[in-house]
Structure formats: structure tokens, C-alpha cells
């Protein structure tokens, strides 16, 4: 087990190192200079040069890469060129929007998907089943940004129940914050819930066809008893995998919804940083996201190993 752990850990570190080189080089190659962007088209060339020096952009590539890498190892992600505040502070602020939004959306999507999927599978080929199939088909097909606009029109522009967007900050109170995240969370949750419900349904149906379910029924358990005690637990594995994937997708991929609701989240930070060539922010945020994904994979590997002894054995 320890050997397996060490192997996975080495893989993690190597992946991170490779990722840091790729991220650095890609941001290095894209055309555009942060200093020229900040100074605009009427700027004095001498002042632009002075700014390049101030930002350390006149240093050689290798020096800048090493400085960035060593800084990160010490927990220093550098200072944003344009915002002039530490990247960690920027990211910290944005995580406080993106993470709660992700969790909120995930909670909603699970709360909708689980009952829908279970009902649909348990009452296969009934009206309820067809209703769920139809609704989820629609949910998958509707683009979430369009659904988001509909929500804004209905609940903000017409009913005035919610703001059309923006985020007041958690300082304004927990409820205020959650209120601002409600419409975006619903918009994000709908397609995810649809996917999840469909996965739940088919996974449950597959499990219901398994031998052990038939055995359970033969032992005299009722349909619903087998469903709840035996089938559901086994059907959950693929569903949980999807939930895990959705988490990382929502965390980084909420950018379109963040734009529709002008929320100050991670996705919009990266987008803005790319257009402004705030390369240090782009690099550090991407590396953090890579780390998050790699770390989650690592944990999942560990969990699999704990659950399935076969994986722990040395490959022959």
C-alpha cells in the first residue's frame, strides 16, 4: 500500500512539474505584452519600457520561469500585473464565490436528480418515467446560459424577486450572498441534474437486472425493498463518479453563467486575465486548477485502492 501511495505521489508531482512548464510556455508564446495593454495606444514608449522593467518582464525567460516556480513552492504566487495585489488574494476572493456556487449547484442538482432517477427506474415505462425522460431530455438540450437569461427575465426583470446579477460579498450577510447565488445555481444545476438523473436511472435499471437482485427477490423481499437495500447502493458508484466530474467542471467551467450574472468568480478572473495579458494570474490560476484536478484524481485512486485490494498489488 505504501509503495502504491509513493508511486501515485511521484506521478502527481511529475504531472504538476510538466504542467508548470506547459502552462508557462503557452502563456509565453501567445502574442501580447501586459505592459502595452496597461498603457494603451496613446502611451509614451519610454513609460511602457519603464513599466516592463517594473514588472520584471525584461528578464530572460528561464529566470522568470524559475522565479515563478520557486515562488510557488514557497506559497508565493506572485503579484497581479494589472490589479497590483497578490494573486493568492485575488484567487482567494474568487474561490469564495465559485466554490459556494459550485456546492450550491451540485446540491440542487443532486436533490433533483436522485429522486427523479429513482422514481423513473422504479416505475419504468409509466407516465412518471416518461415525464422524467422527457424533462431530462429537455434539460440536457437547453443551453444553461439561455436558461439563465430566462430566469433573469422572469425573476429579476419582471418579478423583482432577485437581482439580475452581481455578488454583494459575504460581508453583506450569508443570506444575501446565498440569494445572489440562487439564480446562477439553478441555471447551472438544471443541465447537470438532467444528466445525473439519466445516469441514475440507467445505472439503477442495470443493477436491477443483476443476479443478486433476482436472488434478493427470490428470498422474498419486495420490489421496493430490493431497490432500497440492494440495488440503489450498487447503482450509486457510476453516479458518484459523475458527481465528482461535475464538481470540477462547475468549479472552473461556470464562466458563461458567471458572465450572464456578472459574478466575480474564478472563470471570469481567468478570462479577464487572459484578455489583459495578466499572465502571472493566468499561470497561477491554471496551475491551481490543474493541482485541484490532479489531487482529486489522486484521492480517488487512493479510495479505489482502499476499496479494492487488487489495485494495491505490484503490477507484474
Amino acid at each position, binding site marked *: 500500500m505504501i509503495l502504491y501511495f509513493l508511486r501515485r505521489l511521484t506521478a502527481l508531482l511529475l504531472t504538476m512539474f510538466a504542467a508548470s512548464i506547459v502552462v508557462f510556455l503557452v502563456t509565453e508564446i501567445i502574442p501580447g505584452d501586459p505592459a502595452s495593454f496597461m498603457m494603451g495606444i496613446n502611451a509614451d514608449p519610454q513609460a511602457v519600457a519603464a513599466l516592463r522593467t517594473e514588472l520584471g518582464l525584461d528578464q530572460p525567460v528561464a529566470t522568470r520561469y524559475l522565479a515563478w516556480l520557486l515562488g510557488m513552492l514557497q506559497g508565493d504566487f506572485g503579484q497581479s500585473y494589472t490589479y497590483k495585489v497578490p494573486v493568492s488574494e485575488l484567487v482567494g476572493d474568487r474561490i469564495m464565490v465559485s466554490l459556494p456556487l459550485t456546492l450550491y449547484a451540485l446540491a440542487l442538482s443532486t436533490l433533483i436528480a436522485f429522486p427523479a432517477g429513482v422514481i423513473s427506474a422504479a416505475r419504468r415505462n409509466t407516465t412518471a418515467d416518461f415525464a422524467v425522460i422527457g424533462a431530462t431530455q429537455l434539460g440536457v438540450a437547453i443551453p444553461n446560459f439561455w436558461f439563465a437569461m430566462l430566469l433573469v427575465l422572469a425573476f429579476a426583470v419582471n418579478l423583482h424577486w432577485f437581482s439580475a446579477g*452581481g455578488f454583494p460579498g459575504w460581508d453583506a450577510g450569508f443570506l444575501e450572498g446565498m440569494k445572489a447565488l440562487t439564480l446562477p445555481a439553478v441555471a447551472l444545476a438544471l443541465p447537470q441534474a438532467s444528466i445525473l438523473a439519466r445516469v441514475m436511472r440507467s445505472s439503477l435499471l442495470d443493477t436491477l437486472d443483476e443476479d443478486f437482485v433476482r436472488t434478493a427477490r427470490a428470498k422474498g423481499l419486495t420490489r421496493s425493498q430490493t431497490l432500497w437495500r440492494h440495488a440503489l447502493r450498487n447503482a450509486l458508484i457510476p453516479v458518484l463518479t459523475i458527481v465528482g466530474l461535475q464538481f470540477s467542471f462547475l468549479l472552473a467551467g461556470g464562466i458563461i453563467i458567471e458572465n450572464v450574472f456578472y459574478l466575480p468568480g474564478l472563470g471570469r478572473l481567468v478570462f479577464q486575465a487572459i484578455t489583459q495579458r495578466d499572465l502571472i494570474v493566468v499561470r497561477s490560476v491554471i496551475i491551481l486548477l490543474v493541482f485541484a484536478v490532479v489531487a482529486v484524481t489522486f484521492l480517488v485512486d487512493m479510495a479505489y485502492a482502499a476499496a479494492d485490494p487488487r489495485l494495491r498489488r505490484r503490477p507484474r
Partner: protein
Amino acid sequence: MNVSKPLAAVSAIAMAIGLAVVPAQAARTDIAVGMVLEPPNLDPTAGAAAAIDEVVYANIFQGLTRFTADGEVVPDLAKSWDISEDGLTYTFHLQDGVTFHDGSAFDAEDVKFSLDRARADESTNAQKALFAEIADVAVIDPQTVKVTLSEPNGSLLFNMAWGDAVIVAPETAETNAIQPVGTGPFRFDDWVKGDHVDLSKYADYWGEPAKLEKVTFKFIADPTAAFASVMAGDVDAFPNFPAPENLEQFKADSRFSVIVGSTEGETILAMNNKKPPLDNLKVRQAIGHAIDRQTIIDGAMFGYGTPIGTHFAPHNPAYVDLTEESAYDPALAQELLKEAGVSDLTLSLKLPPPSYARRGGEIIAAQLKEVGINAEITNLEWAQWLQEVFKDRNFDLTIVSHTEPMDIGIYARDDYYFQYGDPDFKAIMDELNDTTDPDKRTELLQQAQRKIADDAVNAYLFQLAKTGVANAKIKGLWENSPTQANDMTEVYWED
């Protein structure tokens, strides 16, 4: 039924009394202003982003002089000044009782510090050229500063009104980017990055106090979101509204007023003057005659914008209307191309992100096609545009709006991206700098406008309009945009 009648009567009376007793609701003293772009930081002396000035200009920071809503330059922190006979010495007399928002006093030392900092070698002031002629800044006494120039500059008072020339305190200059401390009627409160900036009224302000207590600038980049934010009442005013297509809807709604004014943005089809065949005057003239400005304004800008025939703002008193000189005439354009011996011309047309460029570019490409010029469109994001077009000059045509006030001087720059730098034009500009007499200056400015129109340096398209929308009860917003600013000092809610 009979029972309920007296009840209804009683409640009606109660309501009437209630209405009479409750005083008229006091006018609101807070405002939420929408902006498309978030400022990268809040220091107007270090960065060109218009969004910085849109938050801080006149609200937080002040200069020796300032622009008014109609573009006039008036005293601000300098209450008056004396100019020497030779035009080389300006003695500024400063306002009394001015304090920075941190409580420290403002005096001549702060002025000296700010001007010296802006013109220093290591200065990162984006408009460093504004200070180029300043040779020395001397403190005479706490209320008096003497600025000595190396050569006369008739634009000095104008230059001092720019956001880039505001007065900052030495103690806070380095932290203004995140914690701006100025002398204006509003002080900085809070910045929730990516969402909003809060300002509040500064109690110890030296001048006429602001009418509003609290100003919030909210940043909403998406046009659809901007529309929804105004409709939902999250934003009370959106002075540079990003979706002109929605303005008609606001016009029809009595809750809102639509404010259409002019900006300092000359939108041009810039040409690479040194790159053949664009180094040929006839080819450049042909392109000018191939373009129908009104079609572009209608098609790309939903009808908002004023045609221009030179690089100058039509609302400026010195403006000359030269649009006839390059009037739409496809036949003439074809003839000029023939005279120039050019056929089968293919030119690159590189477009930055704003809609005036992207939508305008499609229309221009179609119009050029009519006269036999094939324009190959490439869409670039700003950073790419700055590199490829602006820095490397790897382009034939591009569309861009020059938004700085009175920026005709860029045509005198040798290495500027459209590569004009004509000696005769430079001579006019030099003479202008040496001239302080207003009539003579107007004459020189007009001469300059004619010169660049005659040389067809670029195809001059239209003056960018300022199209804003606000709650109908808000008064005192700027109609025009003589500089990029959201001056909140005069803004108030009508009862």
C-alpha cells in the same frame, strides 16, 4: 355586504390620513452606476485604462485644472494662475483648506511631488507626454507653485486637467492603486473585486459638497446582463450602455431616460502609410471615397455617431467639417485606383474587439469590395492587436477609436502605428505648442485638420457617441464625454 361598507369607509379614511401624515418620501442619496469594464486598479497616474478614470476622475482625485461636462477647462485645485509674458512660467495659486481623504493637508509640496513623479525617468504615467515641456516645478510657499517650461506650451492648462495629471500625496502615491486617497468630494470605501467599488461623500471636502451620500460602481461586461441590470433596477444609471440596440426600448419606457451625447472618440479606418500601395496618396483617397459613413453608423452603431472628415471632435469649437472632401463616391474611388495603377488589390483589415470595429469592419469590407478592393478580415483581441498592429505595424487597415481628448498630435509622431509623421504637419504642431493666443490656436488647429484630411492619412469614419441610460429621476449626469469620467459631483435624485 352592509357590514363591510363602514369598514371600507373607515379604512379609506385611515389611508387618506396616513398619506397626509407621512411626509413626501425624501429623495434618494445613493446611486448604483453601471460600467462595462472593471478598472484594473484605481491609480489614474499609472495606467491608461479608461475604467480607472471612469471611477476616480473628479470623484476621488482632482488636478490643478479640470474638464467640465462641456469640455471646458476650469480651475480646480488651482484657484487661479499667472502666465509670464514669454509663456514659459506658470504660477499656480492653490485652493485653501484642502485636505486629502486621510486627513493630511494638501499644499504646494504635493503638487511638486505629483508633477515631478509623472515626468521622472522611471515614470509609468501612460500620458507622460503631457508633462514633456515641464523643466522645473518650484514651491514658492504652501499655496503657490511655479511651473517652468523648457518651451512654451499653449496646452499646459488643458494637459493639467487630464486624469493622468491629478495631484496625489507622497505618503499614499504607492498604494493609490488599491486604496486611492485624493482630495475630491468622494472618498474610496471598498472594492469587491470583479463586482463593485463603493465611494462615499467626503465630509471635509473643500468645495461645494456632493449631493449624493454613496456611489457604487458596478461592473457588468455582458450587454444582455447590462440590459437586465437596468431593467431590474440593480443599476440606476449606465452612462456608457453597451447595447445600443436596446436603447429604443428604454426610450419608450417612462421610467428611464436615454442620454445621447458625444465622446472624444474619433473612430478611424487607420492605414499603414508606409506600406505599398498605401504609401500612394491616390490609393488612400480611393479608400476614403469608397466608404459610406452613414451606412456604417446606421449598420454598426444603430444610428448613433457623427460623421467626421478629419481627426477632430465635431463638438469642439475649432472643428472644420471636411466630410465632403472624402465623400462617398465609388466611381471616383475606382478612377483614383486606376490612376494609381493599382488593380486586384488585397488588403488586410485587422479588427480589435469593440463592436464599432467588428461590425463596422464587415460593412467596410463590403464597401471596399464594390470598388474592387478585397479586404481580408482578421479578428484580434486587444493584446494581439497592440502587438501586431500597434507595435509591429503588421497590417494594412484597421479600425480603432482614439478616445483621448484633442489627440490630433499623434499625427506628428514618427513611429506611430499608421506611420505618417509628415514634416509639414509637425511644423504646424510645433507652432501650436508655441502659441497661447486662442484665435491663433484655433487657426492652427484647423490648418492641422485640413492637412491630415488632404493627405488622407486615414479614412475618418465617425465620432463615437456616448449612449447612456438612467433612471428618469436622476439629474446631473454628463451628457457628453470630454474625458472618460463619471463625474458624480453634481448628480442628484429628483423628488
